């Protein structure tokens, strides 16, 4: 039995009005992502990849086309509880401790305090944040904050994960560490992931498939299957010849878009 399609967009488009002029950010994007698949949406800055993700997350309205999750059109007023979203910048609530941040969604749905504590403790351990539960976000490093933000999303066990360049603001070392954490969790839970990034190395490390977008307006330009064996190691993977070969193939294609993107 082939895995079912979980996220589908049909001829998706987005037009922004900027200074009274229409700016087409996304144009005719049709994607389908299967159950348990890790897909990277790769493209140069400003190509509309985050816009696509935000439309799927109901953070933005669509201008044209359709979005289906599990075969049903999404309700733009009500986010799907099956879908988890991780922001580009850290959006932890600064007035809550790390533990209270991670337990936020449980609190919303009325999970009793004792169970909440237990589940957040587990999440803290999973993210390597043991002993930091009672800290406020301001006193944590960027990497720790983003790990906490990841756990805040994952605690309700969403089956679908939308991630908007979640590690974009981190330094290389911290980024690789985050890849390890994310891969660990994903190997176990096998969520369906749509991961937006402009970092080719990151896309290759994490994903099963890379969808390459063109420079603005964003269209699907190309697709690459990333068939490196799993479980993967974020560091050693980069030293294999297969990685290097695929990297240069995509890099060439991506490079054209960067040049085009720079002209506009």
């Amino acid at each position: 039995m082939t895995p079912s399609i979980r996220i589908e967009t049909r001829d998706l488009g987005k037009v922004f009005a900027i200074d009274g002029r229409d700016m087409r950010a996304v144009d005719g994007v049709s994607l389908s992502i299967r159950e348990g698949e890790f897909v990277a949406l790769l493209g140069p800055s400003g190509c509309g990849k985050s816009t696509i993700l935000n439309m799927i997350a109901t953070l933005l309205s669509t201008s044209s086309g359709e979005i289906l999750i599990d075969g049903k059109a999404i309700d733009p007023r009500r986010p799907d509880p099956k879908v988890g979203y991780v922001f580009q910048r850290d959006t932890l609530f600064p007035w809550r401790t790390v533990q209270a941040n991670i337990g936020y969604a449980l609190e919303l749905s009325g999970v009793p305090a004792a169970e909440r504590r237990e589940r957040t403790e587990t999440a803290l351990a999973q993210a390597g944040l043991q002993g930091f539960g009672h800290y406020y976000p301001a006193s944590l490093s960027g990497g720790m904050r983003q790990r906490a933000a990841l756990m805040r999303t994952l605690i309700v066990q969403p089956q679908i994960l939308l991630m908007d360049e979640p590690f974009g603001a981190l330094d290389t070392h911290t980024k690789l560490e985050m890849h390890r954490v994310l891969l660990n969790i994903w190997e176990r839970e096998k969520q369906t992931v749509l991961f937006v990034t402009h970092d080719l190395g990151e896309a290759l490390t994490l994903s099963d498939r890379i969808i390459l977008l063109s420079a603005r307006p964003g269209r699907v330009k190309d697709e690459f299957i990333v068939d490196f064996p799993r479980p993967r190691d974020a560091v050693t993977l980069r030293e294999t010849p297969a990685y290097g070969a695929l990297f240069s193939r995509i890099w060439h294609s991506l490079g054209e878009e960067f040049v085009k993107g720079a002209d506009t």
Partner: protein
Amino acid sequence: MSRAGIIAWQVLISVTLAVVWEWGYDLHERVPWLVPDLLDPYFVSKPSAIYDQFLHASCLVDKRGTWNGWSSGEFSKCMARSENNLWVATLVTLKNTLAGFAVGTSSGFVLGLALGRSDRLTAIFQPFIVAANSVPRIALAPIIILAFGLGNASKIVTAWLVVVFLVFFNTFEGARSVDRDHISAARLLGASEWQITRTVIIPSTMAWLFASLTPAISFALIGVILGEFIGAQQGIGRMIIEAEARGEAAGMMVAVFVLMIVGVVLAGIVRRVQAYLLRWRPQTVGNL
């Protein structure tokens, strides 16, 4: 500079000021160009006279200058004699200040939050708020005394009037600048509109409210004293007016010093509370 060095300087400055104040005017006859007329004890009294006046006003000593012990009952007799002795006056002013502060901050917060989150309400009420805020509060004090009488109510209303705008504008600004990503994050984590208000908008706006608490308590005290100046039977402001009528500089100075102490203590307490409530911030601002 070391801490000891700073304290040494502060002590030196205090002693110098006290000495000049106490004995400076004695030199007025001999070197009039050095000693200003303003140092005349008739206007500014003297530390020793202020201290004596303090002991009398607070019923600690009797008219002959002997100490009123607890046991002799002189203290309570003295307390009963005057309905606006220093203790009563301080208590009344303090109570009205705290009441005005509480009413002013809570109503300012609610108004600021409501308008800050609603463009329609803002559009409707903006001209009224701007107009009301441009009226000097002191101009309204006589009207308030007339309407609310000489008792506590008029003082609380005056303090409220001074505090409410300050807190309102702070809260309004805070409610407008709630991080949109925080709201989105809460929504995507399953929060309803009401849950977003309760768990994101209110806590985020509270930070702005807390920042306005220290000025608010000082403003509340100003409001109460203002009300007591215009018309009151009790309170420190009333003491000042009475002492002025009698031409007693020492009496006024005692009241001023008590006000200073009340102000410092209140601001200190509020600042502590504020630092605790804002402990999640990277660094607490205004940590004077």
